């Protein structure tokens, strides 16, 4: 039980001159959700493909163990422990949803009766009973994705890889999918999830690794990652220059934006800090025209770490230093 579900050291992969994964370390404890977060082309899918035995890692990679088995030495044992739902739907469109499920049951060597029961249960759980006898090619995107995950669950895998499970889904289907993923871990299953949506990682993952250009730019819980970014603040905006100036005098430690008549007060957004700001404004008899609380979200982290131009380079530098400390 002390073995982590997934442990990879110095995972490397390059295609010709193009380095896709430049030595990443991953440790995923059993029964947790781990999210690999990154922009398109960061190498997320390659990481999933390697860990799920689809693609072999470069020989220069360190030890890689999945489900306690060595990936290179015993890929069949790894395959027996995992379930994979790839980015592109892995259902057989020519046959019905039910036939897809029974196919999986047969390939997992379930006895006929048990296979039928499992298939029926999962179809029901994923709300597909009604469509079970229609060809999978006629399913909507959300239904295909649900069938895909249902098929992955047939063999009761202990480790599940989900490569961008909600890409292309509408908001309702996305929330359904989140609920499904949450339910998976309550049964002790380990989930390795890739996503380009920060909100998704924030909602689901116990630990998040931000992958950028084949390297892990930062790793931690959503909270830890958010702490890497300074920039939580309260912003007060005024229409009257006079009020603006007296507010600036009453509050210390503010960043002034004279053009917009706005003040920024560093704050973690907690009730206590907000109250103290409001108290000071009240005492001075000042009323702001607009008050907004800005807490750093994963978007800030993401943009800062993946070097988007939307974030001032200074911030990115700071993050870089902080990140080194955290690691």
């Amino acid at each position, binding site marked *: 039980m002390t073995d982590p579900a997934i442990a990879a050291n110095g995972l490397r992969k390059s295609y010709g001159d193009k380095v896709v994964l430049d030595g990443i370390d991953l440790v995923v404890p059993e029964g947790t959700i781990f999210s690999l977060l990154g922009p398109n082309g960061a190498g997320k899918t390659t990481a999933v493909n390697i860990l*799920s035995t*689809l693609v072999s890692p470069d020989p220069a990679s360190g030890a890689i163990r999945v489900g306690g088995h060595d990936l290179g030495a015993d890929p069949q044992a790894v395959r027996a422990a995992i379930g994979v739902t790839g980015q592109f739907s*892995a*259902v057989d469109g020519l*046959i019905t949803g039910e036939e897809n499920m029974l*196919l999986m049951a*047969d390939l997992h060597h379930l006895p006929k009766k048990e296979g039928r029961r499992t298939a029926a249960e999962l179809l029901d759980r994923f709300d597909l009973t009604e469509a079970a006898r229609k060809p999978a090619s006629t399913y909507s995107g959300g239904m295909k994705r649900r069938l895909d995950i249902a098929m992955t669950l047939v063999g009761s895998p202990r480790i599940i890889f989900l490569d961008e499970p909600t890409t292309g889904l509408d908001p309702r289907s996305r929330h359904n999918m989140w609920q499904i993923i949450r339910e998976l871990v309550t049964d002790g299953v380990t989930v390795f999830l890739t996503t380009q949506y920060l909100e998704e990682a924030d909602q689901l993952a116990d630990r998040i690794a931000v992958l950028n250009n084949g390297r892990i730019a930062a790793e931690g819980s959503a909270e830890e990652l958010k702490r890497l970014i300074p920039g939580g603040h309260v912003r007060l905006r005024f229409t009257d220059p006079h009020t603006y100036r007296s507010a600036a005098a009453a509050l210390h430690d503010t960043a002034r934006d004279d053009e917009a008549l706005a003040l920024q007060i560093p704050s973690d957004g907690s009730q206590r800090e907000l109250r103290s700001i409001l108290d000071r404004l009240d005492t001075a008899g000042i009323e702001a025209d607009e008050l907004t609380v800005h807490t750093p979200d994963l978007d800030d982290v993401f943009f800062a770490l993946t070097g988007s131009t939307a974030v001032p380079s200074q911030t990115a530098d700071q993050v870089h230093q902080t990140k080194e400390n955290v690691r």
Partner: protein
Amino acid sequence: MSTLSLAVRDSSTMLRRNLLHARRYPSLTLNLLLTPVMLLLLFVYIFGDVMSAGIGDGGADRSEYIAYIVPGILMMTIGSTVIGAAVSVATDMNEGIIARFRTMAIHRGSVFIGHVVGSVLQVLASLVLVGAVGVAIGFRSTDATFIEWLAAFGLLALFSLALTWIAVGMGMASPNAEAAGNMAMPLILLPLISSAFIPADTMPGWFRPIAEYQPFTPAIETLRGLLLGTEIGYNGWLAVAWCLGLAALGYWWSASQFNRDAK
């Protein structure tokens, strides 16, 4: 579970899947059947008088030409219907479900063994249909013994297996269904330059060796010998050698492509 029983079990699961596909979408196989049937009717009824004049010592009649052409058409049916295997393998390899199979603890070869067995069964069914057309227009096997019938059937099955393996390899090597169809085209063109329609010794001298030693001619000549009692000679061994060689090559080609990293 032992490796063998795992292989048998997973392959039969995959076979069921492929037969399900074929049953739901029979149009591909039926389309491919049209070519040999059309050629049979064309050569017998439209070109028949001229063609029959060219075989034997001249002066042969149409029924003799039917006897001559049907074994060739049967072999061509194999070449034609295995194109379906190439197309469906190529289509399948582009489906996400193959990636899923690769991440499952199933017998590695079962995916294409299922395709091969499914395709051979389809080819055999096609042969029955085309053979029935042949009989309907007057083909009769003259004094073939039971053993010879059995051998003829065995030869057709073996040739189907060999060409199917090649077609599966072609399907795996193709990026999509169209490319697979094009790549497998020689399988339907080769019979045209074999002894299927005219005897190889009536062809230009420089071309004769190509026609005589390509896989179709020995197979056709052997089938003729078995069904009609003509001279088989070295063609029997040559046909079996071609079949075994092509099957082994196709198997090796398919397996090495499947075991490569996913695209």
